[in-house]
């Protein structure tokens, strides 16, 4: 086998696929990205009539998926918090990957938001004329700041590239940035706490939508805290799931089993707490909050396909079940249980965001309103898939040229070696 064309750019000694095979892997994703860009271009050029959004379904696929990727991208801030502040050293093995994923999730979400709003060029208005009482203002400020933080957490990883780290100026800057990473971790945790919460608060303050409206603690409705908790619970599961996928695609172990263990354990415990608080919140909402607003809770689940099974699916099937598996030490040790449980936890958060966005808008508000349906147009779907493709491309490039998994090297050797002593 001849040497790889880009050998000088990949981490030394770590096996990487031949360049041709890597390019072939990127081609379909790049094509998908291209289609996504075209779909986005159409929306920007011709207007949002290219979507199936309308005056009743003002939020749709994009907002729902934005909320989901931001919740999953919480793995970045949470892993950083656990590593740099709570000193869980095992997570050094995944922090780089978590940061890259976080960057992908947040940059993708912001890109989609720029297409979603009617006047993207006016995006700076929120900063210039902010309404500090609006949850969306808080989200805007926090998301922007956090994307900047993520970019500067991504930068040192890029600067550690084999070729780039040969430049003394970049090497020295990376070294000093890394020493100050704990500040970024703390700022990131602060920002994440608030914007994950405010995304929940977006729905919880809607006094015109009893399905979404919740009781408040000071100015923050219960959904504020529930969204933070569910994001913190799903984040480690997402890191676990993506590490497993990367491991499968690259056909090698990337982290030690105890790293999966830790991620699963943290996710499981937070998930248990979340399921508990969510259940309490649901009972209060069904028995107290909604009746006070004149709605009988049965009305929320009277329309197909949003029957009570949805509530059961969210809290039990995709909440309690993965929580129980992830908190059990015995099941956590078995990847056949651990990995699906992590996926289920992520799916549970995705379902929760879907319910809060889509079911809220589908349900009638006025007594003579019909139940509404909405299916995204191809432009909406493809622009989102374009973001997924962007994520795959960026992650693939990062995996190939940067050292995303520090344990990859030591795990590699232990796979290959049968120690042959030299003694004659």
């Amino acid at each position: 086998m001849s040497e790889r064309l880009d050998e000088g750019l990949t981490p030394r000694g770590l096996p990487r696929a031949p360049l041709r095979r890597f390019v072939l892997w990127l081609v379909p994703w790049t094509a998908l990205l291209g289609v996504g860009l075209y779909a986005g271009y159409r929306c920007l050029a011709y207007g949002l009539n290219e979507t199936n959004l309308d005056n009743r379904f003002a939020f749709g696929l994009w907002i729902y998926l934005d909320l989901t990727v931001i919740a999953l991208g919480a793995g970045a801030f949470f892993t950083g918090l656990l590593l740099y502040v709570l000193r869980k050293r095992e997570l050094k093995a995944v922090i780089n990957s978590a940061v890259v994923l976080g960057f992908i999730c947040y940059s993708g979400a912001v890109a989609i938001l720029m297409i979603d709003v009617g006047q993207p060029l006016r995006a700076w208005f929120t900063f210039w004329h902010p309404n500090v009482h609006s949850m969306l203002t808080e989200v805007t400020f926090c998301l922007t700041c956090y994307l900047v933080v993520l970019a500067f957490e991504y930068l040192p990883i890029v600067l550690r590239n084999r070729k780039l780290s040969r430049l003394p100026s970049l090497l020295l800057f990376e070294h000093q940035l890394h020493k100050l990473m704990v500040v970024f971790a703390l700022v990131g945790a602060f920002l994440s706490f608030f914007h994950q919460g405010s995304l929940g608060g977006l729905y919880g303050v809607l006094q015109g939508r009893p399905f979404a409206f919740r009781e408040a603690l000071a100015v923050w409705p219960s959904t504020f805290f529930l969204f933070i908790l569910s994001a913190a619970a799903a984040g480690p599961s997402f890191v676990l799931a993506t590490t497993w996928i990367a491991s499968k695609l690259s056909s090698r172990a990337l982290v030690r089993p105890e790293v999966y263990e830790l991620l699963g354990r943290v996710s499981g415990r937070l998930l248990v707490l979340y399921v508990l608080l969510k259940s309490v919140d649901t009972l209060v909402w069904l028995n107290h909050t909604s009746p006070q607003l004149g709605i009988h809770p049965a009305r929320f689940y009277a329309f197909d396909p949003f029957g009570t099974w949805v509530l059961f699916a969210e809290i039990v099937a995709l909440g309690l079940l993965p929580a129980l598996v992830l908190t059990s030490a015995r099941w956590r040790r078995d990847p056949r249980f651990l990995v699906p449980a992590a996926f289920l936890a992520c799916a549970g958060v995705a379902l929760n965001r879907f319910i809060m966005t889509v079911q809220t808008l589908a349900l009638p508000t006025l007594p003579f309103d019909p139940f509404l349906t909405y299916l995204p147009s191809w432009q909406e779907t493809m622009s989102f898939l374009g973001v997924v493709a962007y994520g795959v491309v960026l992650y693939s490039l990062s995996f190939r040229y940067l050292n995303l998994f520090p344990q990859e090297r030591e795990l590699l050797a232990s796979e290959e070696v049968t120690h042959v002593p030299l003694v004659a």
Partner: protein
Amino acid sequence: MFPWSPEFVWDAGHLAFFGAFYSVLAAIAAVLGLGLRRAVADARAGRAHRIAWHAAFEELPARDRACRHQLTGEAPGRVCDNAFDCRRCAAHPSFEALRATHASAVPATGPAGLHLPGDRLYHRGHAFVRPEPDGTVTVGLDDLARRLVGEAEVVERPRPGMCLEEDAPALRLRAQGREVRVLSPVRGVVIGTSGEGAAVTVRVDPEGPLDTRHLLDGDEVGAWAMREIERLQALLGPRELGPALADGGELLPDLGAVIPRERVDGVLGEMFLDL
């Protein structure tokens, strides 16, 4: 957003919100500014080489970072976290105090037929130091390093008058199309270089007493060489090791010929601690 804009209201909500926002911006700017300033200070103080070496050291897996006292059996399982800089290690003096004198008679032939003369001190990056009678030292590649690089050309050699530091790159070679940097084991001023390829040597004037606490000597060398052979085994895998060992026991003079081309880069990187 700014206090001077007509809509701005000085109430608790605004103060809390903008207080938090501007604090976050200030924290981000402070980190970047501080990082930049410290990096410039590092550059001015000439710490770039030390930082580069520490960065490379951090990339090494635990099996490549065995403490010298693990090699001799004094501290089983002990891993170095000091970039092999025994002068700055808190535990090293106590180990040294406990040891008997270093064995003086060291066989010139080490494991797998490696040539390891006793008049030399060895750096973990496979450079040797031979003190000369006139107070200068000769620095070169040890036998294992020479066999690893085989037919090599010197791409970068230090110029006379240049200052070398410990753990800074002294030489750059090109072997089998890959670049290898050899770390300097000593600090001093370069007097001159001689030789070509893997046999290149550098004459260095230490300009003062030579500090060799971080270098291996005596019976450490044999144990270390054994360990290096094992490391090579781990990197090559059992199926390649056969051809590398002529007569079943001695390493070939040119290992590059038998190492699979796609592994060469990784093997050179790990053996020379150049990741």
